[in-house]
């Protein structure tokens, strides 16, 4: 009688790498055949130059220090250095890889990311009716946004940051004011 398993997720500020999580990393160093990325955890993650779609020893990806990479963790446990890849198990990139130029990267809490990643997230739907924009969500609390103009980008950034604390009503009011402009 009874039994069953509960999954308890709690609000955290610090990201801890988990295998399979998709995150945004910042390239901090190139060490021979590996890149070192800052993913916001306790140590930098490593990324091999061959872990990109269509990469070979002759055809290396063009990655510079300071670039943003969207990838997933292949290895992530408490005893080993985390390893990232930008291809899935079948070798396709499926949206992962180097994130393009421009745009804006900012940090939010882990709980907000999980809220935004939920299917049919209201916040994202309402924002997409405001302006068209590109959005990358990293499970490590990092969000990259790019809209047509710098002003639009910054407005979206502010709404996303504020939606941590705003109620649905306040958000609808803010968006109504903005689309009225």
């Amino acid at each position, binding site marked *: 009688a009874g039994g069953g398993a509960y999954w308890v997720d*709690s*609000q*955290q*500020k*610090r990201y*801890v790498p988990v295998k399979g999580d998709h995150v945004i990393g910042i390239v901090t160093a190139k060490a021979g055949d590996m890149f070192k990325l800052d993913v916001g955890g*306790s*140590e930098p993650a490593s990324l091999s130059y061959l872990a990109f779609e269509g990469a070979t020893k002759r055809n290396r990806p063009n990655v510079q220090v300071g670039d943003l990479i969207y990838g997933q963790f292949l290895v992530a446990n408490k005893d080993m250095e985390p390893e990232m890849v930008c291809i899935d198990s079948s070798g396709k990139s499926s949206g992962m890889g180097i994130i393009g130029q421009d745009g804006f990267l900012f940090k939010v809490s882990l709980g907000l990311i999980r809220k935004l990643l939920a299917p049919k997230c209201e916040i994202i739907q309402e924002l997409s009716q405001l302006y068209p924009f590109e959005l990358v969500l990293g499970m490590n609390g990092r969000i990259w946004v790019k809209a047509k103009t710098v002003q639009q980008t910054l407005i979206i950034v502010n709404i996303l940051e504020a939606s941590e*604390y705003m109620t649905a009503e306040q958000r609808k009011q803010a968006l109504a004011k903005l689309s009225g402009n």
Partner: protein
Amino acid sequence: DLPALPVPGDTSVLAGLYGPAEAKLSKELPDRAALEVLLRPKVGLPGVLERSREQLLRQTCEAVVLGVLHPRTAITLVLQVLSDAGSLLSCCLNAACMGLLDAGLPLSSLFCGVTCALDPDGTIILDPTTRQEQEARAVLSFAIDSSERKVLMATTKGSCSMEEMQQCLAAAQRAADTIFQFYRDSMRRKYSKS
């Protein structure tokens, strides 16, 4: 990584928790997190008293933090004394626990700090003011855990008999209930906005 701020009476301590972050090679432990506590007094540089309190706080925190989940990392707790009107050590303990809760670090239980002062005539005063601490025969501080109200840390200044210590401990365990309820209420308020 954000500060937490409890205030019993007019003593207040600001706690900032950083981690689990990368540890210096000299400080990293292969199987668990290395916990460091820094206590900054309101005026002046940290001295021997702060150092001994840091060790007490560190040992208490190490008893509850599940450090084995984060080997080779460093967890740093910085406590800044904003005002001191007595019972400073238990205020630091409470601030430390709230900081750990706020940061979402894995803990086996919560803890709270309670200070008791023993009057020259044997009365037990909980959360004494500085004046009461100075006039007391003995000042005892306890760190009580939340799961079974067991003692995580006990420190005494002055002299008292074993029975008196047991009585102070019992009073502290009862007082701990109020503090744990305060933790619950604070957390509830914090999360009810979202």
